[in-house]
Each structure stands twice: as structure tokens, then as C-alpha cells.
């Protein structure tokens, strides 16, 4: 899409986000206060960080189904070794998850296997691994160490906490990487036209590995961060993370086919989702209704995109390079 089209597209999505916000803001005065905004930001951190990773793999034309399980296993690992300190445990967790992601990217790229198919297996395997490492239990932080976590809940400027700043940094770094580096553009290339990119001389393995390392590391970061903040990690957790991340990315304009999308869109999708979820929660809907709402939202997004694709395809038929289906 041209720059102008991209901006228009983002503006439309942002408008939708604002509408959702207003729908709930009128009923929830708390939304406007610094505390409310801080809660909003903090609540968005997990899905936000993981969505960036999922988005990168989607831009590369792939899909990482294992993010929820990877978040769970990393959270469990971080909790198990938490006695070495909060930040070191976090670091170890992220490195572990990044390594796992790199290996997934290597296997998928080198074998040429469908990433959906491959990550279904790792989705299952990591979940099992999480249960094994946690001994089927919830792993909790020793009480002595709980104060260490307070560093994560400080407030800056009244609304930001270290973890929400961390999320913003992630968005910033990945966004700049995707937009302004050669390696980032290679990821768009292999997503926007795999065989064309290959024919043009773009190496396929490097951007593939970068994309999956990114999604792995960020899934691990999200899982470890949240577990540390809560002081506990359960191996069965993060089971709706994939759904939320996928919804965020699709609402943010990341195309499933690949090659299209940016982190600003992901941010817009993120907050659209969060406004909806927190709004419903504040209105008294029980937590288990969240899945219902997110699922319904994703279905709506799918339908809208479907109609747009069908219209685009009908228009594209009026061109030389048209195909049958």
C-alpha cells in the first residue's frame, strides 16, 4: 500500500478504536483518571508484547501458534529460578524463549515446512514441558522475594510503570527495526512474495529466523514478566493468549498473507481489544465472557476482511494477470 493508503487505513482503525473507547467511557468515569490509564496500560502489556511477536511472523507470511505455550513455559522457568533475582530470572527466561524461537525459525525455514503445521506440535510440546517443569503445580515466588517485584509496579509520570514502559520500548524497537533496517524489510519481502523475493536474491532463512526469534523472545518476555509480577506461574496459563494476539494483529491491519502491516496498527488493535475487554469487565461481565467477546470480535474482523477481499478480487479480475480463483 502506498503511504497515503496506509495512513488512511490506520486512521480508520484508530477511529474504530476511539468509538469502542467512547462506548465504554461514558459509563466508566474511571477511564479518564491517571489510575485508570495506568491500569489500562499495565493490563495491555502481556497481549501487547506478544502481539508484536505474532505480528512479525505474520508479516513474514507465517504464523506462530506456540506463543501461549511458550509464554507459559518461560513463566514457569522464570519462577523456578527466581532465587537468582528478578531481573536475572527475567533475562534467562527471555534468552531461553529467544533460543527456542530461533530453532523453530531454523527448522521451519530449512525444511520448508508449513509453520502452522509445525507450531501445532510445539504448541502441544511446550505446554507439556511447562507442566513437567512446574511439577503439575503453580509455581510461586518465595515470600521473601515478593518485595523485589515492587520495582515493577512503580509509577512514572503517574501513568507509566516499568512494564508498560517496557511494552512501549518493544513496540518502538521492533517498529524501527521493521521500518528502517534491511533485515526488517527482508521480512516484509518474504511475506509479500516468497518466491518472488527468493528469485530476487533475498535469503529466506535469515528473515525467517529473525521473525521466529522475535516471536519466541517476546512470548517469553510476556510470560516471564506477567508471572513475576503476579508472583506465580501456572503451567496451564496463557491459553487464550494466542486468540488475543491474533485478534490484535488482524484488527491492526496485519495481513494473513504477509508483507503488510506495522506496529502502529498493532498498537491500535491492542487498545481496541483492551478497551472492549476492560470495559466489559468494569460493567460487571464475568471474566469467562472475555473469550466470548474476543472470539466474536475476531469473527467480525474476519468477516469484514472477507468482504473486502472478495470485492478486491472482483476488481482484480479486470486486470491482465488474473487467475481463476
Amino acid at each position, binding site marked *: 500500500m502506498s503511504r497515503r493508503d496506509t495512513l488512511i487505513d490506520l486512521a480508520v482503525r484508530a477511529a474504530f478504536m476511539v468509538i469502542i473507547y467512547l462506548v465504554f467511557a461514558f459509563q466508566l468515569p474511571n477511564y479518564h483518571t491517571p489510575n485508570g490509564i495506568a491500569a489500562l496500560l499495565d493490563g495491555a502489556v502481556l497481549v501487547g508484547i506478544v502481539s508484536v511477536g505474532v505480528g512479525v511472523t505474520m508479516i513474514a507470511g507465517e504464523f506462530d501458534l506456540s506463543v501461549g505455550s511458550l509464554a507459559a513455559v518461560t513463566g514457569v522457568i522464570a519462577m523456578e529460578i527466581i532465587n537468582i533475582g528478578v531481573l536475572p530470572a527475567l533475562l534467562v527466561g527471555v534468552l531461553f524463549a529467544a533460543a527456542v524461537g530461533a530453532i523453530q525459525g531454523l527448522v521451519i525455514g530449512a525444511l520448508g515446512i508449513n509453520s502452522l503445521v509445525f507450531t501445532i506440535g510445539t504448541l502441544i510440546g511446550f505446554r507439556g514441558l511447562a507442566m513437567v517443569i512446574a511439577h503439575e503445580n503453580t509455581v510461586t515466588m518465595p515470600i521473601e522475594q515478593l518485595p523485589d517485584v515492587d520495582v515493577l509496579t512503580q509509577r512514572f509520570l503517574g501513568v507509566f510503570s516499568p512494564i508498560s514502559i517496557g511494552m512501549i520500548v518493544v513496540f518502538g524497537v521492533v517498529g524501527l527495526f521493521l521500518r528502517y533496517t*534491511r533485515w526488517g524489510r527482508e521480512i516484509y519481502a518474504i511475506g509479500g512474495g516468497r518466491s518472488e523475493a527468493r528469485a530476487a*536474491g533475498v535469503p529466506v532463512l535469515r528473515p525467517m529466523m529473525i521473525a521466529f526469534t522475535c516471536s519466541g523472545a517476546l512470548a517469553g518476555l510476556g510470560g516471564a514478566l506477567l508471572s513475576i509480577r503476579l508472583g506465580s506461574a501456572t503451567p496451564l496459563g496463557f491459553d487464550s493468549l494466542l486468540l488475543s494476539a491474533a485478534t490484535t494483529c488482524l484488527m491492526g491491519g496485519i495481513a494473513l498473507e504477509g508483507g503488510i502491516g506495522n506496529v502502529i496498527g498493532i498498537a491500535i488493535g491492542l487498545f481496541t481489544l483492551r478497551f472492549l475487554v476492560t470495559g466489559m469487565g468494569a460493567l460487571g461481565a464475568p471474566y469467562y465472557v472475555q473469550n466470548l467477546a474476543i472470539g466474536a470480535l475476531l469473527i467480525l474482523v474476519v468477516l469484514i476482511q472477507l468482504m473486502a477481499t472478495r470485492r478486491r478480487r472482483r476488481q482484480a479480475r479486470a486486470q491482465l494477470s488474473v487467475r*481463476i480463483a
Partner: protein
Amino acid sequence: MPSRDIVLRMSGISKRYGSLSALLDVDFALARGEVMALLGENGAGKSTLVKILAGLERADAGAVEIEGQPIRLRSPSHSLQAGVAYVTQELSIVGPLSVAENICLGGRDQQVVWTRARLADEVKPFLTLVGLESIDPSVPAGSLSVAQQQLVEIARLLSRNAQILILDEPTAALSDVEIEKVKAVVRKLASEGRSIIYVTHRLGEVFEIADRVTIFRNGRSFEPVEVKSLDIDELIQHLLGRRLEQMFPGRSETLGPIVLSLREVMAPGLSRPVSLELREGEILGLAGQLGSGANGVVRAIAGVVPSDSGSIELRGRPFRPGSIRDAIKEGIAYCSDDRKRDGIFGVRNLFENFTSTALWRISIGGLLSRPREIKIATELADFFEVDAARLGRHAAKLSGGNQQKVALGKWLGIEPSILLVEEPTRGVDVGARAEIYRHLRKLANQGLAIVFVSSDNQEVLGLADTVATFFRGRLVRVASADSLEAEELLRDVTHPGAEDVRFIQ
């Protein structure tokens, strides 16, 4: 013969696709600073050789030496590293990326940071060289026309700073002005000491820019010839003159009433409206190269694309197919030029393939009837001379010729009155080609009306009763095949005489 400074040497190159030999023990050498043209029919092997050099395909046998060093070209990035850059017929443009990114990606730019401004500056000189200086390098490449995309690819080629450049039919979609720019660039590069391989159908271009010519035929190459010493008529004979009689069955016996008529029809790919008529029992050949617009005509009749204006009449009644199913209902069968993509069901056997278009014929109230299936498949296999023992095999396992027979034959199940085919013998070996021509003629004699699109001029002259030539989206002429000379056909589809008298100087 003065000794040359050989920059590229390929020896003993062989490549098969299934049972089809694309290249048979081919030797090829390229000297420094020369422009070598490759000529030959479709399927003669020139594109395959070039693809091997570009790292897109791997040879089954043979060796490649660049600057005296043996090298294995395993992927496009490998070839680039070895100093080989290429532009091929199939566009390798990544649509969502900008023009500048398309040019720079995959190249040697090692800088980490890429900004719009820096990329734009870097590609400007190359865009200017190919005449695209007015294009904003930041627009998505997918928004450009096919011709512009082709020029962007050439700009990318230039930016690679390669020693060996391959241009495979780079001017197919270009206007004359654009072609002049390309020719000028090629001459300039040669004078800088780079070596260029130029694959084309356009004899005019050969004479204008090439130093030597290598002719390919049936997977073999001939000794290169100096262009200076070439005789144009001899060349055409060499390329086109063959045993027409042995390859092709005769013309139609009788022609029935008009079954299809197009009046001022516009379709995607056409720049001027087209009017044509088709009779029962007639084989109409639409001749044209890439970008001629001929397949737009056929696809509009088939319901694959909408026809924008004009009228189509089927047996005297207006006909406007909104979809493929509409056309099939009226007895119109359509085979595209890519059977692997949409002509055959590779992982199913031939019984299932042959009956796929007419499941109602083999089912009784929802249940499949195996005896009927066997009967129909056996009859079709018999008609198309496919060995009955092969019926149980998966379609993808067959030779190209047999696959094409299946792609065509499955349509007989709907008892069509019109058969539309694009490139009826692409990727088919000589023996099977003759068989397919025979079958098509037999079908025509039984009353079927056939329209085929082909970029193989010989095939058009040999198979069709009537020929319609296309060039750049317009119909040039309609004539009976018997009255059309080979050179006239060639001229029509590459450089129609009326406007453009620059065929040979």
C-alpha cells in the same frame, strides 16, 4: 578465429523435467564484453539454461565455470554473489514493497539502516537509465503497470553491478520507446566490459544489439554464429522451417454453422475491441507473444474474466458468462496454460481426474458408480492414447504430455461444443505434441469448435484452420492458415508491419 576472453563456460549441462529433456548435454561459452543472443522456440531449452545460470533451477549434470573458477549455483543469492544478475519473463516483484526496496533487496548493500530517502537516492540513477525517472521510488511496486514493473526489474539488474547479465525476454511488455532505452543500456554495459546474455523472440533486436547468436532446438544448442554473418531468411528458416507435414494433421474437413461470434468485445489485456467468428468443426488459433492480449479473449468467453463491452453470441443467442460455471453450462470448456495449477488433480488418479468435470455422469442418486467411472475413464484414455495401465496412477506422476491429455480430456465429460485452450502443448515433448494435435483435429472433425492461444508460431500455423494474430492488446489480422506465410505471422506478433517498419535493417 581470434581467441576470446571467456568469462563464462557451461559444459555438458543436462536437465530433465520428469520424462521431458529440457537440455541435453549443452555447452555454452560467453566472452567478455559481448552480447550473446539466445534464439529458439518455446521449450527449446534457452530459458532453462538461463534459469540454471541464475540459480533458479539446478542442472542434473554438467559444470559451470565463471572467470575460470568452477562454481555450483545453488540459489539466486548464490548466483548474485558469483556476479550473475538476471531478469526473467516471470516477474519477481514483491508487490507490497516499494520500488526502491524491490531494487535494493537481495543486492549487495550491506548497510544496516535503510531510510526512504537514502534508498530513493540510490535507485534514482538506475531508474533514470531505464526511463522511469518520473516514478516516486517509494510507491508500492504492485501499483505499477506490468511494463513499468518490467523496467523496475531491469533497473534492479543494473544496480547489481554484475559481470554477467541475463535478460530473458525483458521487452515483451514494453513499448518501442522503452525498448530503445533498454537496448541503449545493453550496449553501454557491453562497452564497459560486461557480458550479456539476451534471450528474445524478436529478430530485430538480435540484429541491433547482439554480437553473436546461439540457437537452441529441442534441448540442444548449436555453435554460436556471428550476427554480422547471418542471413535473415536463413535464420527464419532455421527457426521456423520444419517438417510441418509430419507433425500436424490436415485441415478441417467441413466447417459447420457459426457457433460463436464476438463483436467489438473488450476484455482485460486488450487495448482495442476484438471481433471474431468461430464455426463448428473449426480450429481457430490465436497467435501472440507475452502481453498480446489473446488470452483475455479466451478467458472472457470462458467466464474467467468479465468482458467489459461488446457482445458475445453463442449459437445466435446473447451470451454473457458471469462465472466459469455459466460457461460450462453452455458447453464451453476452458483449459488454462498452467495445468499444474488448475488443470489436474495431482494427487488423485486418472479415473478421478477424467471424471472430475461431470460427477453427475458417474453417480446414481449421490452414490458413485464404479463401473461407469471405469467406463468413462477408459474411453477417454483410449481416445487420447493414454496407456490404460496408467489410469491408476496419480496424475502428477505422469509425463507432461500425458498430463496435458488429462487436462484436456477431462472436459469431454461435459460434452462440450466449444473447447478453449491456452498453450496446448506447453512442457510437452515432441511425440506427445503430435498426438495431441491429432486428437484435437479428431475432435474438431466430430463437430467440436476449438480456440487455442499459442506463442508457438509453428504450432499455430500447423494446427489451426484460421489464424488471428495479436500484438499488444489488439487484433492484427485474421487469415486462413493456408494463406499465411511464416514470416508474416512472425512479423504480426512481434512487429506488425503497418506502423512499425523497423523489422530488419
